[in-house]
């Protein structure tokens, strides 16, 4: 039963991204942001993007909520490069947040961390053996990835300072399947990787003016914590599965910083910087294709125009977002890195009295790297629905 429940969770958070050959290296492409609002703002979720104060990913922003909040996001990603095209989409993340007295907050959720979805075909070759010409070809596909089940909380120490913590339990399964054809024979191999690990992240928020919120500064530091390992099992066609000894689940340390600044009463500018580095070399067994794991950086800027309360002009009823980002991914080959540049657009539609909101985020980017001459074009569309409720908020007795 436990096994089935885990698979349901994996299904919910695993099949979220289009396949890319880069997913065959390391842990695959690490996800940027799981929610539609952050997608539209080009951020990773450290700085607020739902409005100028709230992000589902940063616990220090949760204390500003009035209502208990449930958010779900759907993502669809399309990757194309030359004649190659791939697309996939489904529910990507869920977050449940409970603010407590405007001073504390707790929340939990689930989100994808990385994906290893790919389908590769190698060129056919021939080899002369003992006077025979043997034709050889291979195909390689992968599915699965790493997801996180997180819980966090925050505390407004003072009106200006808030701190938060987030604990991520990383889990996931990745299946790699290789089919090799040698002349009339074909053979199949498979490897299954089961990931387990934990992250601990600390968050800090500073607001210079708690009422006007002209400037808010955010920082977070995420480190691997506790026990983290990978269990690999090799599968062969004719012999029994061969469980391998546990290997190290090399996890990165991530430092993030960001600001959001009120330019005009309803217009806010945000900037965010993320630096990620792996403390040790990656276990090469994880690679389906050759590649190295190193450090990664990400920079983004965005503009947010918030809803104008009380306006009769329908244009003022929505949140508008636009953003730009540039990132270098953590995987490379022979110093030939993988970079991505893109921009985004977003729209938030608040409705109801309990801070409900429907968000749309569209991000278009180009990814240039070591596996293909033609850059990959990536289009991601995310839709998020946030529902507020008085659930767990004590009401007045009549």
């Amino acid at each position, binding site marked *: 039963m436990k096994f089935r429940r885990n698979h349901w969770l994996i299904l919910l958070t695993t099949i979220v991204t289009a396949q890319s*050959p880069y997913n065959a290296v390391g842990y695959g492409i690490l996800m940027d942001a799981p929610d539609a609002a952050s997608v539209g703002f080009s951020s990773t979720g450290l700085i607020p993007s739902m409005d100028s104060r709230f992000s589902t990913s940063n616990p220090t922003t949760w204390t500003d909520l009035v209502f208990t909040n449930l958010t779900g996001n759907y993502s669809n990603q399309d990757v194309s490069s030359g004649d190659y095209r791939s697309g996939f989409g489904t529910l990507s993340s869920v977050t449940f947040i409970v603010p407590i007295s405007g001073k504390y907050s707790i929340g939990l959720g689930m989100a994808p961390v990385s994906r290893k979805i790919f389908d590769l075909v190698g060129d056919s070759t021939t080899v002369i053996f003992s006077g025979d010409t043997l034709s*050889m070809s291979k195909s390689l596909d992968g599915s699965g990835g790493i997801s996180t089940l997180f819980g966090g909380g925050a505390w407004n120490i003072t009106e200006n300072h808030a701190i938060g913590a987030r604990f991520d339990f990383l889990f996931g399964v990745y299946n790699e399947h290789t089919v090799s054809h040698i002349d009339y024979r074909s053979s199949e191999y498979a490897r299954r990787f089961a990931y387990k690990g934990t992250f601990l992240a600390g968050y800090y928020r500073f607001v210079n003016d708690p009422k006007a919120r002209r400037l808010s500064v955010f920082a977070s530091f995420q480190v691997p914590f506790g026990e983290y390992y990978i269990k690999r099992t090799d599968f062969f066609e004719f012999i029994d599965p061969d469980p391998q000894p546990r290997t190290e689940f090399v996890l990165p340390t991530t430092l993030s910083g960001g600001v959001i600044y009120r330019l005009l009463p309803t217009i806010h500018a945000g900037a965010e910087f993320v630096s990620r580095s792996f403390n040790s070399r990656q276990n090469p067994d994880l690679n389906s294709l050759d590649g190295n794991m190193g450090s990664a950086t990400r920079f983004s800027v965005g503009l947010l125009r918030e809803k104008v309360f009380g306006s009769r002009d329908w244009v003022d009823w929505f949140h508008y977002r636009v953003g730009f980002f540039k990132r270098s991914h953590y995987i490379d080959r022979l110093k030939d890195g993988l970079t991505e540049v893109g921009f985004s657009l977003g729209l938030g539609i608040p409705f109801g009295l309990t801070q409900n909101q429907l968000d749309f985020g569209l991000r278009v980017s180009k990814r240039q790297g070591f596996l293909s001459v033609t850059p990959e074009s990536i289009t991601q569309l995310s839709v998020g629905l946030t529902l507020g409720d008085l659930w767990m908020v004590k009401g007045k007795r009549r």
Partner: protein
Amino acid sequence: MSRFLIRVLILSSMLLVSCENDAFVTSLDHTLLTTHEASTTSFRFKTYQVPPTLGGLQRIYLGKKDGIDASRSLVEFESHEILQWSNIAVDSGHFQFTLDTTYSGLIPEVNTITMGYFRRDSNFAELESNYSNVDWIINDYPKLSSSFVTDSMGLTHLRFPLDSATVETLADTAEGSWLYLLESPEDVGYMLQFYASESPVHQPLLRTFLHRNSSESDTSESGDSTRVFLGSTDVTLFVPPNLSSGQFDSSFSYLGVATGLVTIVKPDITELNIPREATIGRAKLSLPFDVESSAGVALDSLYFQAYALEDSVSDWSWGEVLTSDTYEHHSATFARSSSSAPMGSILKLDVTELLQSVISGRKDDETTIFYLGFKLKMINSKTIFDYAAVRSDSSAAGQPLLEVFFEVP
């Protein structure tokens, strides 16, 4: 259901999946799969001899050739109990064996070929009986004499005439059916070939001439008629020359059908360092033959096959003579090689599946296939008297060689 739960369900209904996937073409040369080539010339050979068990052939042999004694063949016919019916009176009959039209050898003028008959023993089995396991044949039994006749079609038949009393005796199966033993003298200069019951034409037969008994109340006309009963099973009990008889050279390994010669070959695959999880892409076993020491029409008409052994070989000495084949082999398709005939004087057998099975320890009918060596058998030849000699040393023709192309994940 609470409003909150309904909202959760609505959220879950967003699990809309849209997908479109093409495979990405890239170089997969650097994947974890690596290909390797390995070969070995280190071999062990063992030639041994078993009684040839050759029931179910399309021919019945009788005589002696190249030291192979085929002076006895066991034959069974369809039941002829019907001849015991009271309204049938048997006049006479004969057993008939038709000589193969391709036979061009000597036909004995003074016919000394006989056919005895006795009650069938329960141990008789067409596909299992051979000269070493028919000690149930009794010493004293009635024998029929024979003569050769040529019919208007030009076919030569060996006939054993029967009088009515003998036919009636043979029709009486109350104490069991009859088994017939076709016999020739031991030292003869011929090896006759007759069509057997497996042949599509001219099978052995028992032809009876009879008429219907007329009674006072029977107003129907009585008339002569003929009734034919075909042969149902037959096996020639070949007795090959003993391996130690001097006819065979112990420096070669031999393979033959009527000679009962089998060779076990064991390449040293530890030299190849193939891991258990490897996939064999192609494995080829090359064996040079010695034309001079082989006996046959042409080597390229002989077909061979290799099998995985079930039992280990403890005695690798040349020339063991066994009363039954104790070195049993697996019969699954993946536990044997494809069949092949030599090209020139080199036999190249594709042992890919066979080697894969022993490397990976695949299971055949719940039994793990271990690497105990390969049993080489001649499975087809122009005549069953052919045998071939395998060279185990290096010569101008080459040397025994196992080449393997494999992939390691």
